[in-house]
């Protein structure tokens, strides 16, 4: 118990006056996961919107597939990206393995289905309300999609957050494609795994505390945005 107490004390000390290493790890984590979230939103939101407003044969199968992909195990994604990016793989010539870019690719693949599936649900409900009016106005499909995305913006913020939460917290995919290389591809989750296995509980705990704080902070921010929007009755 003595050790744990010391570890906690050290961890809080680190959080309050972080070292360069710690900041570097947190910074890379944020860079990778925010970039992956942004790309996943760019791909997933229009895809979700399109699925919300269109009806085509095989749509049901696509929905099942996307919903199933929400539960993709990160290590499997990591493995697939690894196979593609490794020297012998089809994209090996790009030389991306063990770089932050590879980690962004893996996380993007991991969370795009989440963004698409959740936004599809939200936008389909919204579309049920708007569809007849939009048809009366003779809007094009693209105009409808744009309007739905904009009018669902506050709910979609939560979707983006869900994606970010999943990306920043996963360890399997970034470990495989990033390799947890110090000063290059070491992020919070891989560092926590490594430091714990080395018995360096202080650094692991400090990172854990920061990770939790980020998760809480982002959630609180989005929640307050939504609540203020609801108060003003813009989103209801």
């Amino acid at each position, binding site marked *: 118990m003595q050790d744990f107490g010391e570890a906690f004390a050290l961890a809080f000390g680190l959080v309050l006056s972080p070292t360069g290493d710690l900041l570097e790890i947190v910074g890379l984590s944020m860079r990778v996961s925010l970039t992956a979230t942004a790309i996943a939103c760019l791909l997933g939101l229009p895809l979700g919107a399109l699925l919300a407003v269109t009806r085509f044969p095989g749509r049901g199968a696509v929905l099942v597939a996307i919903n199933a992909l929400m539960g993709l195990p990160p290590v499997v994604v990591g493995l697939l990206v690894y196979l593609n990016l490794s020297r012998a793989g089809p994209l090996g010539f790009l030389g991306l393995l063990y770089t932050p870019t590879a980690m962004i690719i893996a996380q993007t693949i991991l969370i795009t289905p989440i963004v698409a599936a959740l936004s599809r649900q939200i936008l389909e409900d919204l579309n049920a309300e*708007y569809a*007849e009016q939009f048809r*009366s*106005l003779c809007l094009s499909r693209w105009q409808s999609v744009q*309007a739905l995305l904009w*009018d669902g913006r506050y709910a979609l913020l939560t979707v983006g957050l869900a994606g970010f939460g999943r990306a920043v917290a996963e360890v399997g995919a970034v470990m495989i494609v990033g390799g947890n290389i110090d000063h290059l591809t070491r992020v919070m989750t891989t560092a926590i795994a490594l430091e714990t296995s080395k018995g360096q509980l202080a650094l692991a705990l400090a990172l854990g505390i920061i990770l939790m704080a980020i998760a809480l902070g982002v959630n609180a921010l989005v929640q307050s945005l939504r609540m203020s929007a609801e108060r003003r009755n*813009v989103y209801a």
Partner: protein
Amino acid sequence: MFMRDLAFPDVVPCTETDLMPLQVEGVRLCLDGKAVLDGVDLRLEGTGCTVIMGPNGAGKSQLLKLIHGLKRPDAGRISWNGRAAAAVTARQALVFQKPVLLRRSVAANVDFVLKARRRDRGLRDGLLEHVGLLDKARQPARQLSGGEAQRLMLGRALATEPEVLLLDEPTASLDPASVLAIERIILRARERGVKVILVTHDTGQARRMADEVVFLHRGRILEHVPAEQFFPEPETREARDYLNGRIVV
């Protein structure tokens, strides 16, 4: 109050439509296996305000959606001076019973339609003034009262420069002042040559607005006569009962 007399004459320009006459022949519409409209024949001419009346479930709203081209009939033909209904939806505007407002400001709701129709955005303030909402332009549209929301729906409908204005019980459950404001906006569109087709439950409103009346009952048209003929002496017992406030089923 806000009904300044044609302060913005360009907002609702004079229209001369070649969409009329509207010809409905033998139209049948089934919903969930039940015929909502059955053998509807109707010919609407020229300008003015046609009021469609009838008890609940008579098929009034469905008829409106059919002629607007939002739905296809199971049988029969609808033609706007030879054109299919779905082909001329864009030249008409439908105001729904329940306002469908975008989750944006009042002004952005009008902007949205002006942009979608590639019309001059400078028309927005004139349109808002026309429907008495200029002072609420920056307010979220969903904060409007029922009457204001419906006026915004009308403003948005007029922003499409419709040749035909279709209204599905636009004043249902509104207070008298709102009803009056909305009726004035509709009448001014009518004065400028917009053909108005109004579905209403309110016999008082029908008396004030109608140039002619179509009385619908159980999916069929029982009467289609000029207003001055319908209101004093309806031909059918159902219409008489309806006007006298008896329950017609």
